[in-house]
């Protein structure tokens, strides 16, 4: 039925991507660019296997833009935005979602404010209506604000004793002392208490607009129908958001070790140094390098040396952590207090070994076959594909990226990896935070 709709001005630009598997078999995933009559763009992957539609949206600009003294604002908005809108108070709104089996929620990260909508096809129009209401006419009534505030404060009380939370907060504070990235995404008890309904309203009117909005849709919907719904849902948002760009963060000085004393049997260890941003030409070489170093499932060097050979930790790994205004190479481990010093020594020596000697030809080959071969495994549900569509837009990778992605990995050479390892990895640049009662490790430069 939907196929009969023809909307003037609806632009459809499709891009068919072939997902290649190790054996050479290919399967098409078609990413379509849908531009609504009012000019709102979404990327769509149709899938009619089940009567389900998933939508993900992201507004550029996240918690790093929270005003000083109001840290946690973006996050608080994310909890209250689905708690009443238009004529529907909180309980009525939530009941409507429940009764129609619609999932709607929001979240805030450092660089983005995101939303998720999931609905059965039969409730599609109501689902988009509820999303539109939440974005355009949130009520911010006193009751849900005070309820969410009390929940956020309870969460902060728990986090205050959680070794992993403490470690990550302390690390970002140490890495970015003079940049918004050093401030807590979840705020502090003081800032959460300071946030008012007017702050929430100001956030919505300034941050949620059409020019910083990215949309990914996957599932049982036609481009024509989606185009119409895009206008109804997002057409009422302001054309422009206030500036979301952040000043570039100063490169972390590094070399510092920070011990936060907590009475726990296992220390939480996190460590990071400056790293690459997503648009760095060396990003793929670094991605392959880090796969060998600490990201490769049960086969990475950190896993092998720390867990497999010595039984020092249950979980250990490293990750590339690109942000809009900074890049990091980040890692974590957990080990008994008396084995922290040994674990840190191995992490540093693996860091140095990679910087000095790079990877072997066989490690490179294995990393590439894994990274290219496992790419299709990311496409196994509507929600996951919708997230990929958002990520591609956020990182400005182009609508044909899926088709090019494995080529980028294949093109990485041994020289690239080893050059990038030498250029970036430096154990002396690591900032290390240990939360627990570690033996033989203390704070210091």
């Amino acid at each position: 039925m939907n196929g009969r709709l023809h909307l003037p001005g609806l632009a459809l630009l499709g891009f068919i991507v072939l997902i290649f598997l190790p054996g050479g078999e290919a399967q098409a995933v078609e990413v379509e660019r849908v531009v609504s009559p009012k000019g709102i763009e979404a990327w769509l992957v149709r899938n009619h296997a089940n009567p389900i539609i998933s939508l993900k949206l992201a507004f550029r600009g996240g918690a790093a833009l929270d005003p000083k003294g109001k840290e946690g604002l973006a996050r608080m908005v994310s909890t209250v935005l689905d708690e009443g809108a238009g004529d529907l108070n909180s309980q009525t709104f939530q009941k409507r979602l429940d009764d129609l089996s619609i999932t709607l929620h929001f979240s805030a990260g450092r660089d983005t404010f995101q939303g998720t909508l999931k609905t059965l096809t039969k409730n599609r129009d109501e689902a988009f209506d509820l999303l539109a209401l939440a974005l355009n006419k949130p009520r911010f009534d006193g009751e849900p604000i005070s309820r969410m505030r009390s929940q956020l404060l309870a969460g902060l009380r728990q986090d205050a004793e959680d070794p992993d939370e403490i470690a990550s907060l302390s690390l970002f504070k140490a890495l970015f002392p003079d940049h918004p990235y050093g401030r807590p995404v979840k705020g502090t008890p003081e800032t959460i208490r300071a946030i008012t309904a007017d702050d929430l309203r100001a956030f919505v009117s300034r941050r949620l607009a059409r020019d910083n909005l990215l949309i990914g849709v996957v599932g049982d919907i036609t481009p024509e129908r989606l185009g119409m719904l895009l206008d109804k849902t997002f057409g009422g948002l302001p054309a422009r958001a206030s500036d979301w760009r952040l000043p570039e963060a100063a490169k972390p000085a590094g070399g510092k070790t920070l011990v936060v004393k907590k009475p726990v049997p296992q220390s939480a260890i996190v460590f990071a140094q400056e790293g690459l941003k997503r648009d760095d030409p060396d990003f793929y070489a670094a991605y392959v390098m880090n796969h060998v170093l600490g990201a490769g499932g049960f086969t990475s060097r950190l896993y092998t040396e720390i867990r497999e050979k010595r039984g020092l930790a249950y979980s250990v790994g490293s990750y590339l952590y690109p942000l809009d205004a900074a890049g990091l190479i980040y890692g974590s481990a957990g080990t008994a207090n008396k084995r922290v010093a040994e674990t840190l020594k191995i992490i540093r020596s693996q860091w140095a070994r990679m910087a000095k000697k790079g990877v072997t030809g066989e490690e490179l080959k294995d990393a590439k076959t894994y990274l290219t071969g496992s790419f299709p495994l990311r496409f196994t549900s509507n929600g996951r594909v919708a997230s990929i569509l958002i990520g591609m837009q956020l990182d400005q990778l182009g609508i044909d990226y899926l088709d090019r992605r494995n080529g980028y990995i294949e093109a990485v050479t041994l020289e690239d990896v080893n050059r990038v390892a030498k250029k970036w990895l430096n154990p002396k640049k690591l900032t290390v935070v240990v939360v627990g009662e570690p033996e033989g490790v203390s704070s210091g430069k």
Partner: protein
Amino acid sequence: MMTFVQGDRRALLPFFALVAVLLVTAARVDAAVFNPKTFRLSNGIQVVLIPNNRVPVATHMVWYRVGSADEEPGKTGAAHLLEHLMFKGTPAYPSGAFSKIVARNGGQENAFTSQDYTGYYQTIAVDRLEKVMAMEADRMTNLILSENDVKTERLVVLEERRQRIDNNPSAILREYVNAAMFLNYPYRNPVIGWADEIRSLTRKDILAFYRRWYGPDNAIVVIAGDVTVEQVRPMAERTYGKIPAVSKPPRPRPGRVRPQEPPQKASRRVVLKDERVRQPFWSRQFMAPSYRNGATGQAYALEVLSEIFGDGSTSRLYRSLVVERKLAVSAGVRYDPSALGPARFVVYASPRLGVSIEQLKNAVADEIKILLKSGVTSDELERTVRRMQADAVYARDSLSTGAQVLGESLVIGMSIDDVESWPERIGAVTVEQINAAARAVLIRGHSVTSTLLPLKEGS
């Protein structure tokens, strides 16, 4: 609603885990949920196939009918340590080759242990499926372990225990609650094991456990993906089909005969005060029928009841305690009937700042009293059933959900029909059944009440 608690890599699957594990909620529903196909090989192994042609990828899982509740006294943690050690090697794929081959083929893998089952899985391009089937079939009977493998992996598991339990007061409390809840049933022991018993597990213990429980007659293979029975059957014959039905000399499978839980007749109270606690937590749990234990006919009614009473922000408990009376920051119910042994109906709440546990407890008791006196309404029933049935439609979306649900159900002795007719059975639940089940289960004098508190009151 079925709740999967799935850990990260070689993880542990404790029921009712509240902690840092990924919660994937899935339901089974709407007439014919996953449309699986099944066949059995001559050595007894059952193969279940769930067609899904979204991408040319398959999830391949092997489920063993053994979990931590099948361990011998003094050997807690054996099922889980074995799960870790299954990655060590066989003569054909020695020292870590299994994981290397999976990775080289672009596959992802993991494993998990629960009270009732142990599972291993890989997700991989469909043209590599036979390779992982062959490797999984190989390690079903050919595991080799060195003393050093066991020694090192024990340390890893002890770190896992520190991370999941000892570093976390609410997890510590949960161990005490489980021990209080079950007088005799082995669910009283933690899946990961007690630390001292993990330390004392030997290579011999693990190999004995392996030989006793692992084999084609005690395993179920579940595959979800872009394959047909016509393609999978010959692959299964070439891989799993080659494993002899029983080892030499032949040994009958002992079966799962577990200690029985006597009727609950006393209330118990467990309190943990810990300097690491700043947000108190309260819960009360009642022993309840599961799909496989006790008055199993009540399980579906209890699932609906748990949703009405305590699932989400429009449930009775949340509405009353969190929204209207402003006593709690969270309140709800957990009930998971997918168990071979007894299930638990858990009611929980966490107070707002300044609200005492006493006030909170009384407010929950008020709601239970109202429920027992007036029952649920037909409107609540209808809304909830509709929502639960929709969950089953959503469950079809992800490649792995069907494999998880089928595996978890079959491994505890349920049938494919049980899974496929779940929406129908939920739809058949009546107000009277819910009210009768509530009265049978929610008996204060038979419950375990737990409280997690800061060391100093008012801190």
